[in-house]
C-alpha cells in the first residue's frame, strides 16, 4: 500500500470500521442529533445521555465510509464519561488535527488515540468524513434537534 494511503487508513481505523464501538440506538438518551453530509450521502444519528454536565453514555447509528465510521466509533469511546465542556475542547483539538493546524508533537500526544486521524489532513475531500460524527455530537449536546448539514 502507498505510504500516504497507509497513513490515512491506519489499522486502528480499519478495526473501528469493522467493529465500531457504541454502534446502537441509546434507549435512555436525553440528547439527539442527526448529521448529514450532502456530498456523499453519509448519515449519522448520535444519541447522548447527559447527567450533571457529564456525558454518561453516547452511541451512534448510520452509514458512512471507513473514516467516518471509525471517527464516530473513537469519538463515542473517548467522549463517554467526560464533562461536556471537555468533549467540546476535544473536538476543537481533533478539528485542528484533521485540518493540519495541530502545532507540534506535544499537541499530538494530547490527542492520544485520535492521532491516528492525522493522515486525513492530506486528503481535503475526506475532512468532512472525519468530522461529521463530531459536529453531530456537538449539536446533540447543545440539544439542537434539527439535522446538521456540514460545510467545512
Amino acid at each position: 500500500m502507498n505510504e500516504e494511503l497507509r497513513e490515512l487508513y491506519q489499522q486502528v481505523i480499519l478495526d473501528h470500521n469493522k467493529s465500531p464501538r457504541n454502534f446502537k440506538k441509546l434507549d435512555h438518551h436525553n440528547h439527539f442529533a442527526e448529521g448529514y453530509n450532502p456530498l456523499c450521502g453519509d448519515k449519522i444519528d448520535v444519541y447522548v445521555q447527559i447527567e450533571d454536565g457529564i456525558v454518561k453514555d453516547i452511541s451512534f447509528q448510520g452509514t458512512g465510509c471507513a473514516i467516518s465510521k471509525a471517527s464516530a466509533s473513537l469519538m463515542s469511546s473517548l467522549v463517554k464519561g467526560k464533562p461536556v465542556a471537555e468533549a467540546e475542547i476535544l473536538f476543537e483539538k481533533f478539528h485542528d488535527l484533521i485540518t493540519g493546524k495541530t502545532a507540534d508533537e506535544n499537541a499530538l500526544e494530547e490527542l492520544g488515540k485520535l492521532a491516528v486521524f492525522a493522515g486525513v489532513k492530506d486528503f481535503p475531500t475526506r475532512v468532512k468524513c472525519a468530522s461529521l460524527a463530531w459536529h453531530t455530537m456537538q449539536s446533540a449536546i447543545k440539544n439542537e434537534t434539527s439535522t446538521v448539514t456540514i460545510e467545512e
Partner: protein
Amino acid sequence: MSVKTLTPLTTGVDEYNVEKIRKDFPILAQTIHGKPLVYLDNAATAQKPQAVIDSIVEYYTSMNANVHRGVHHLSEVSTKAFEDARIKIKEFINAKSESEVIFTRGTTEAINLVAASYGRAFLKEGDEIILTGMEHHSNLVPWQLIAKEKQLKIKIIPVDDNGELVLDDLENFFTEKTKFAAINYVSNSLGTINDVKKIIDTSHLHSVPVLLDAAQTVNHLEIDVQKLDCDFLAFSGHKLYGPTGIGILYGKKSLLDSMPPYMGGGDMIAKVTYSESTYNELPHKFEAGTSNIADAIALGAAIDYVKQIGLEAIAHHENCLLEYATAELLNLEGLKIIGTAKNKCGVISFVFDTIHPHDVGTFLDFEGIAVRTGHHCTQPLMHRFGIPATTRASFAMYNTKNEVDILINGLKRVIKVFK
C-alpha cells in the same frame, strides 16, 4: 445483462484503433500518484481531443470578436464560425432547422429554460408533470421550482429492481390534467437506456409535450429528433468531448415560438424602448447576452471529431468494455451491480456489502484510476435502491480492456485491505 463474446471492433472502413484515438487526447498521457491515468469518470465529463483544444486556441488567437453585432471583419468571421457550429449541431441531431438549436450553458440551463419559460406561460394550478424515478437532479429540481410556484403536481414513473422504468401501466399516468413530461433518456447513475419512444408516443396521444434529458445519451447513441418526435431535447457539450460551459436546447419551432423569453438582454431583442421591447426571432430570442462563442465553436469541432471516429463504432467499443467489465466485476467477492437493465450503455455502478464507495474511490485514486463515488446527483434513485452511494465506472471511446483489468486488480486490493 447478458455477456456476449467480444467481436472485433470496426468502424466500417478502418479498424477501430483505440491506441491511435488515445494519442488524440493529451491528458491521457499523464501519471497520477506515479501510475498511468485510467480515466473512468466519463459520465461526469469526457476528456477533450486535441482538435477541440486547438479550436479554442485558434478562436482566441485569430477570430475573437462579438457575434451578430459588428460590421467589421472579425465580427463577421466569428459570427460565421458560431453559426456554422449551430448548423453542425442541427445536423448531428437532425433538427429541421438551425433556428431550433439554442446554445445554453449546459443541460441544466436548457431544462431550466423550458421549465421556467414553458412552465410560466402554459402550466397552471393543478396541472400534472410526469418525470421518472431516475432523473438527474437537473431534470427534477427545475420542475420542483415551477411546481411550487404554480401549484403543479409531479408524478414519477417508478424504477424496478433492475433499474428499468416500469412502463406497463404508463397509460394510467395520464389524466386530462397532465400537461408536460420530462424524461431521462440514459441514466447517468445506472446506464439504463430508457424506452423514450414509447413514452413520447403515449404522451402525444394525450397531447403532452416531452422533453428528453439526453446529457448521457449524445455520446453513445445517434439521435434523430425528428424520428424520436421529442418536443425538446437537452444536452451538454462536455460529455460529448467538447468544452464545459456550453450545451444545447433543441425545441420544436412552433413551441419555441409560442414561449416567452427566459432571460432578457442584448441579442434577444428586436426593438427596445424605455417601456417595452419586441423580441428577436429564433434562436436568438433565447440567447440573451454574449454567448459562449469559443466553446460553441469548439463543440462543433468535437462533433466533427466524433463523426470522424463514428458514433456507432464508439458505441460498439464502449458496449464491449461494458460487457467485459460487468463479467469481471461479478467475479469479485461481495460486489453487487446496481442497474442491470437489458439495455445499458457506458455506465456501470456497483456497491460492496461492507466497503463504502468513498473508501473504494480513495484507494483506486492511488492506482491512478478515476471513478466517481457518491450519489451521482440522483439522491431519490439511491434512496430507491436503499443505498447512500455507489462507485461508478463509465466508459468513453478511448478506454481499453487493459484499463478494465487495472480497475479489477485495484478493486481486488481494496477488498484485501478491508477484509
